[in-house]
């Protein structure tokens, strides 16, 4: 491993628990079930258990940031770039500006834009994919998390004839999973504090669909800030060898939490 490539970065490891969450990819054309984003099975046979990708985690934190900043009375970017509809109805709520508007010349960039970016500026953070597999599956590989996956069938019938009005299913999962957020650039203390507090605020919002029907409840179990040194190189046979060293940064986390919101 003499000619290896190393990368140093910081990351947040967040452990989350959920009783029921529906982060679907939308129903397929002609289908009745709103499925999670299917990634196929481990060996391609379909017998070992199907892999799914949990969508919408970045958007969830994005909305948590907006709600948190509004509560503190700080103006940040909205998730949308639009101000009004084609008919002229205003859709931008009070306390926000359109996404990326603050990055224009002569304006002060808001803290959310610094972290999440927009069409004008790339983001500072990257969300790692959360890939889940059924807890019943016997074969798993590294990086895949085991949770309970099932389908909730909903069938509404007419009173007299008992014919189906609505007949559809929604795929959900429940259990513990880990979310990893990588910093592509070194964050300032204020940015780190804002992100940490947004993660702590996120359970107040629902994750995924049907949050008003009891789905999408979450509980943050653990948040750790880590310093990672990842190296990658080739062996003599040409195989890629990857090594990772981690160190927890508890002190920096505390400093970050104290740095936001700024004291006027």
């Amino acid at each position, binding site marked *: 491993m003499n000619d290896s490539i190393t990368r140093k970065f910081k990351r947040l490891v967040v452990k989350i628990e959920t009783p029921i969450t529906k982060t679907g990819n939308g129903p397929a054309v002609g289908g009745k079930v709103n499925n999670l984003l299917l990634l*196929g099975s481990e060996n391609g046979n379909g017998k070992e258990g199907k892999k799914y*990708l949990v969508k919408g985690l970045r958007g969830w934190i994005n909305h948590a940031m907006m709600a948190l900043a509004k509560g503190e009375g700080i103006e940040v970017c909205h998730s949308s770039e639009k101000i009004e509809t084609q008919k002229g109805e205003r859709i931008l709520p009070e306390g926000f500006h359109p996404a990326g508007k603050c990055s224009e010349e002569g304006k002060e960039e808001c803290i959310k834009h610094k972290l999440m970016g927009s069409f004008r500026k790339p983001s500072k953070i990257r969300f790692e*994919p959360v890939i889940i597999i059924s807890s019943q599956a016997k074969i798993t590989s590294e990086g895949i998390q085991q949770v309970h996956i099932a389908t909730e069938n909903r069938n509404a019938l007419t009173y007299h004839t008992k014919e189906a009005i609505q007949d559809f299913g929604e795929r959900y999962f429940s259990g513990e999973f880990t979310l990893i957020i990588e910093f592509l650039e070194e964050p300032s203390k204020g940015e780190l504090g804002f992100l940490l507090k947004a993660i702590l605020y996120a359970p107040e919002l629902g994750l995924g669909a049907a949050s008003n029907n009891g789905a999408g409840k979450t509980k943050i179990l653990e948040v750790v800030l880590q310093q990672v040194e990842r190296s990658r190189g080739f062996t003599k046979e040409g195989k890629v060898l990857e090594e990772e060293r981690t160190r927890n940064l508890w002190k920096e986390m505390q400093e970050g939490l104290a740095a936001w919101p700024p004291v006027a």
Partner: protein
Amino acid sequence: MATSSMNKCFRLIGRTISPIVHTTHQFFIKGCKVTITREPEENEKGYLPYPRKTHYGKLVKREQKAPTVKNCYQGFVVVDLPGTNNQAQKKLDWFLQLETLGGHINEGMGKIAWIERKEITPSKKIPKEKKMVIQKGLGYYPKPMLTAIKALLLHDFVHTEKHDSKVYHEVKISSPFIREACKNHHNGEYLNNWLIPIIKKYDGLASFLNRRIPRREERRYDYENGIIDCKAVAEEIERRQENVYELYNYIYYNKTFSRFYETIDYANNKLRKHLLLAVNLLINDFKKGKIEVEDNKIVKVSIPTTEKEEETKKFLSGSKVLKRIYPSKKGLVRPKIEQTNFQGLTVQSETARKKDREKRLAME
């Protein structure tokens, strides 16, 4: 050995952890070809197999697909770097530090894990088969082929046991041989006419390939868009029947004719496409060598079952096709033409007379 080492190049292989959002499964980065495949090795034909395709985004019934839904691919990632020199090594290192590819990477898509590096020699690829294209105009073909083409173009304009003429009015076909074939192409009888099995085969094949969704209509053309003078159309075809090229062009280009349906049950299909497809299938088979011209007839070439698969894969080269159209006259035994005088005696040539004289002198 020197040339083989020159052709060698690096290949970096990886595995997708989450699907790569991209418009295509093949693209270039820094002059290196990146391919997302199902397996990291080439198949028998020398191509990397097509990857598993999924959709990222909401698929809603009866709503427009793009731009809310994006294509994404998963499987293996193969990066082919040109050569094995220092520049290629630098590019290899750059690719090795990559952790994601494609779009939506900040949302968790396009994550990859590199597996290994290889030194390979690029394998030869078998050229892909050409798709059959309906020709704009007919080329030159032998006389029996032109007869068969004419019969295929005219076979739906006569009353048969199964259906009436598809332009309502029957076209009077001047050639009795073609007329007989067209009239009986739905029968089981072959009547010692070599055209009937050909019309039967290519008519059936063209309708099989074209028919997908049935739609029943009462008339044989789109009546809502105006009435067509069917008698005039029949007369037009009748007038052009002597020249195959003219008839083909009329069917190809005429806008009024293109409004006719293939059948009443399959009104989505047009008669124009059915006729042109049948003719082009015949031409395609002739070019591939599946049919041949023998004794002023078109005959099916019998191929042994073992060679059949290999034979159908290959397209004949341009020169071989030309040889089929213009067969060489070498080695042909021409029948002797004997001239007769008025008394019924044969007239010998001067050279033959000389030879006879010499023989007699030698005998004496």
